[in-house]
């Protein structure tokens, strides 16, 4: 599924768009929390597991991927707790959105931008101006390629 550019807000940090190589590096940071949402199946097979490896995973919506989670809660609930220091039970300097439906992700990324110190990254296909880093609007093939590269980087 292609996702849209959302024209509502200005970018947090104008600059380079996210790419696979950069992502691979970033995901190795400690204190990374993955919010994996109900559209996780949009990711190509076998990509999610290596991407989230080493980080904490919260499953949102009805997501049920084969990865170990620390909790299941609504993406609204998780982001709200992230904005209240220490409430989520971990120190997360980096929050990564994966498979979260675009609109609700937009709202949550805006919330994090304004009310949390965590760096927010979106791995989904549509551009998210409120994330610190997000892919530009990509074709499915290009997106899958970038994700593949990120996985490769991580394991390298």
């Amino acid at each position, binding site marked *: 599924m292609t996702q849209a550019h959302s024209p509502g807000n200005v970018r947090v940090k104008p600059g380079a768009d996210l790419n696979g190589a950069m992502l691979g590096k970033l995901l190795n940071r400690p204190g990374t929390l993955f919010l994996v949402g109900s559209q996780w199946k949009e990711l190509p097979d076998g990509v999610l597991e290596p991407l989230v490896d080493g980080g904490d995973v919260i499953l949102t919506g009805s997501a*049920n991927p084969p990865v170990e989670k620390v909790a299941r809660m609504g993406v*609204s609930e998780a982001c709200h707790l992230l904005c209240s220091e220490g409430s989520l039970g971990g120190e997360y300097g980096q929050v990564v959105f994966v498979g979260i*439906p675009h609109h609700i992700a937009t709202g949550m990324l805006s919330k994090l931008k304004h009310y949390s110190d965590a760096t927010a990254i979106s791995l989904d296909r549509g551009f998210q101006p409120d994330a610190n880093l997000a892919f530009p609007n990509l074709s499915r093939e290009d997106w899958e390629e970038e994700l593949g590269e990120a996985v490769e980087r991580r394991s390298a």
Partner: protein
Amino acid sequence: MESRNVRLDRLEKGGLQVEGLELTVGDIEREELWDEPAGPYHLPGIKDLRRWDHLLLGRYDSSYEPTRDVCDLCTFGPCDLTDGKKSACGLDISGQTARMNLLTTVMGAAAHLSHAREIVEHVIEKFGPDVEIDMGSKNDVEAPMVRVIAGTIPETVGDLLPVVEYCEEEMNHLTSATSTMQEGSPLEFDSKSLHAGMMDNLALEIADIAQISAFDMPRGDEDAPLAEIGMGTMDPEKPVVLAIGHNVAPGTSIIDYMVENGLEEEVEVGAVCCNAHDMTRINPHVNVVGALSKQVKYIRTGAPDVVVIDEQCIRADVLEECRKVGARLVACSGQAVHELQDVSDRDPGDIVEMMVDGEDGVFLPEIEKVGEVAIETARSVYEDRLGRKAIPEVDELQGIIDSCTECGRCDRACPEFLPITDAMVDGMEENGGDWSGLEELWDRCVGCTRCDEVCPVMDPMSVQETASEHRWKTERNVVRTGRGPINDTEIRNVGAPIVLGEIPGVVAFVGCDNYPDGGRSVAEVIRDLAERNYIVLTSGCSAMTAGDHTFEDGQTVYEMFDGRFDKGCVSNVGSCVANAHIVDAALKIANLFANVPLRDNFEEVSDYVLHRIGAVGVCWGVYHQKALAIANGAKRWGIPVVQGPHGVKFRRQELGRPDLDERWVVNDANRDYEEVQIEPAPEHLGYSAESIEEMAVMAVKLCMRPNDTRQGRMIKLTNYIDLYRKYFDEYPSDLARFVRHEKEVPLTEREEVMEVLEDRGWEPRETPNPTMLREEDRLI
């Protein structure tokens, strides 16, 4: 005899006015029944219910989700509000976001309030001010919200005018508060949003009881008739009149003219959106074309000869769409005039002639003339219209699909991110010409035309429409017509099954059809909940969605389930304004079961509702500001609301913090108001879910209340666990929070669950008589 009479005259003067003498039980007057003590909130102003709002918002955090980083509402700006910066007027991002939520709520509430005034004035103009307010013999409390807020029992439609005026005054104060350099606190903006929501709900009630009384709509009809719904319900070979909007007044004129002239067989009359509900409430033979998403789609088929618009949910480009197919437009409300010529002072015959001669639309606020003009114009022009449409012919479709450049702009423009390009590519001749993807889109498309706006080569929405032509041409399902109020007797009937744990809750599916993935899943959740013995209510576009999908045996939920307010039933209250009856049902419960006085007693009534009535509103396809206004009203009354993912665009949710015990402390009225711990129930007051599955689980979870009986909690938990497992394939991790006693754990898994709970140090808890108020704040 004479002397006696003299004596007795004196006697009268001397005061043989024995107390109670005049009161014979046989002729109790209405006012005499109104012996309720009055609470402290008569016509509460913008500041008067702050204490309650602060209590609510002290428990439920306002979670702000700004849609803009800047404020550009005054010429100091635009001001950048990122990184904690304040605007030139001193407002920060929270304040600005809360203010925008208020402004949005005010917009929605104003639409309903303006509607209420127009209906009331129309009724007074047509029938006089003395039309008796009558909600039928099964409803003793005719207007619960008017009683609570305005502290009066309205006897006639004329009595509603002062209440409308009060709302208008409050709305003016609220609008004022959104102007620059007024309010500065996010919390106070939020309180005002709730106030605007309350004004909205009150306006809904006024509008609906006025129109029920005046137009003899069903008054709590437990078996309201079924009406046909679908784009295939009307015969396009006949003259077709299509009404769009929310104000039924022009619709009544159309129905009256049709019936008075015996034209039911000759002319097709249908409507989209809430007008369709309200017209079928008057005459179930009116056709329901569908929800908002069908507006442009239906016009483009070329079927309508005349389109009549009144107010709300009318596309801004309706005239342009009408022109494409040669349909004449009749605008009836000052709210939406579209630069059309005002023909109020002309004879209907002249107006018809004008339109037959080629005028593509008129502005006709003289409602009484609308019926004749619309129907006679349609009868005169329909033969010329036959064959015209604004969608491609089937035989030219392949060529159009093949011209797709695969640029992907349609996908990005689509508010639901539907895979339009993929469907086009599959539909290309070179790829086998499979149009099934386009057909599938038809079900999920919300009819916004944004794809048409960006596509360089075609109108993709029209392409899918032609590709699915064989389906919608025969689309005929049923929707139950709006029943109006929930009857006092029905409420009494469900009291015992609720406390005995046979009914797990009340879930109301309300609002628009901006569904992230089509409406079918909404109909499925409705069926699922009805099968689980929930009382399911529907209204507005959601009520149409429920009737627009069939299951096994080709039946819709309205055929599968009865229309009562009872376990396992699905009943449609009616249009947007009929949403009032959902809140009203909660207020009636407070009044009927606990004798909580309604009169001027907002705080105590809402406190009762919040802590005791397991009702939840679901607005899965939220799009309009009105939906926010309705929701904010419901929240202030203590009814939580779950929205779809688009809901975050209203910029605020009200989220509970189950992790903070101190938020879940109430006073126990049975123990001298000492503070006691309760479970987080209802856990949230306003919540946006990302998927329909999450919505279903959250809706049943939010049916829990601290007063639940053990049997009641057991059935609620049973459904919560079951749906959680069904959709998330695991056990809810927060179960321990909601179990107060082992008997509340579902029978079939009691042993295992109790073992786990006891390992975690779980301890039983008493059920309190919960309130957030103090003893001195209450009348009971």
